[in-house]
């Protein structure tokens, strides 16, 4: 057992952000989710049982995500006025094509059923082992494996179906690089 070192947290921001983005399907929501996750983690000292902080952070991310979903479902829906809309954080990336690819990929992930999505994000996006992921998501390893298998299958099928002309056409502007299509 050891205490989580808060100073080690900033190094996980990028990984957690990608995981949050895949969960939410939107960069803006991902930013909020990551910030809320770190706020929770930092609210009091944390004792960890494993060596890897990422497993613990995934658990808090999951809890925060589920809480936010429940809260949002109870909240009355409002439509934002144009002046209330804040533009997304300008990206320092020199590769807007990649940002678009990632956006589309994560949007597809975010359309998965909640359980499948969490399994895929924990293992394939965050990079946890099956054991760590099953602990973080509080499910048995066998359950996680099944969910992961189905999640991957659904995504692969969706992306393949959406590809214009299929792979045989070898279109450079496929689903994952749609922004480059003429």
């Amino acid at each position: 057992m050891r205490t989580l070192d808060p100073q080690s947290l900033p190094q996980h921001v990028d990984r957690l952000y990608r995981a949050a983005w895949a969960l939410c399907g939107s960069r803006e929501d991902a930013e909020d989710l990551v910030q809320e996750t770190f706020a929770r983690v930092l609210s009091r000292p944390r004792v960890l049982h494993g060596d890897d902080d990422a497993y613990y952070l995934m658990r808090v991310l999951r809890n925060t995500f589920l809480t936010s979903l429940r809260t949002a479902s109870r909240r009355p829906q409002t439509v934002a006025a144009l002046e209330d809309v804040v533009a997304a954080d300008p990206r320092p990336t020199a590769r807007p094509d990649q940002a678009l690819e990632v956006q589309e990929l994560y949007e597809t992930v975010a359309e998965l059923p909640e359980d499948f999505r969490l399994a895929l994000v924990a293992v394939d996006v965050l990079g946890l082992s099956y054991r760590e992921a099953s602990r973080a998501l509080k499910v048995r390893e066998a359950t996680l494996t099944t969910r992961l298998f189905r999640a991957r299958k659904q995504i692969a099928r969706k992306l393949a179906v959406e590809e214009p002309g299929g792979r045989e056409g070898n279109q450079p502007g496929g689903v994952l690089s749609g922004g480059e299509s003429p």
Partner: protein
Amino acid sequence: MTDTPKNPPQNEQELVELLRSVDERAPESLHTRVQAMVSERERSHTTVRGALGGMRLRLGALAAAGAAAGAALALALGGPGGAGLTLGEAAAVTLRPATLPAPSENHQRGVLNADVEGVSFPYWQDRFHWSSSGSREDVVGGRHVRTVFYSDGHGHRVGYAIVYGQPAPKMPPGQVRWREGTAYHLASVGNAQVVTWLRHGHLCVVAAEGVAPAKLLKLASFDDAGS
């Protein structure tokens, strides 16, 4: 992800490879906010510990423990001259991504064309095969810090930070190693190994993850000609 346009994955294996290849960074504003939250938490935690230590001293029941707590607090704050910059903050800067280009080599002096008030960043390529890969400038705890990053071509990265201004912020002593009359202080912050020392009165910090402390010490104590 690669620069070339991708075809959609045709099977689960290709999908997994695609998902794992995404290296999109979080926005800098989010990094800044998280760093600020961590610093705030550290500050408040230190304050609470200090208050508790004071209560214990007033009670007079745990004098020895109070002395130990005082020593720990002094370490956390970095000693009397350390207000404003902690070891964790200094190390965190060296682990963050580069935001500026890598400085070039100054062939005449055998250092990089980058310095902090006359203290140059070393050139490690010929001797150690670590080349400069980027740099960044930060203000941390009220101190201006310049960092140069070095890569070894095998996926390892070292951040070398020099803090502007004197006197240098005090750092916790950690394990002390002496090289050529200079004290190098070894510590670990999270998963990172950190070496701190003084060059011409300026605090220098070298830190990395996945690099052995001995290697870091060797890099840090390399006697470049440009100091």
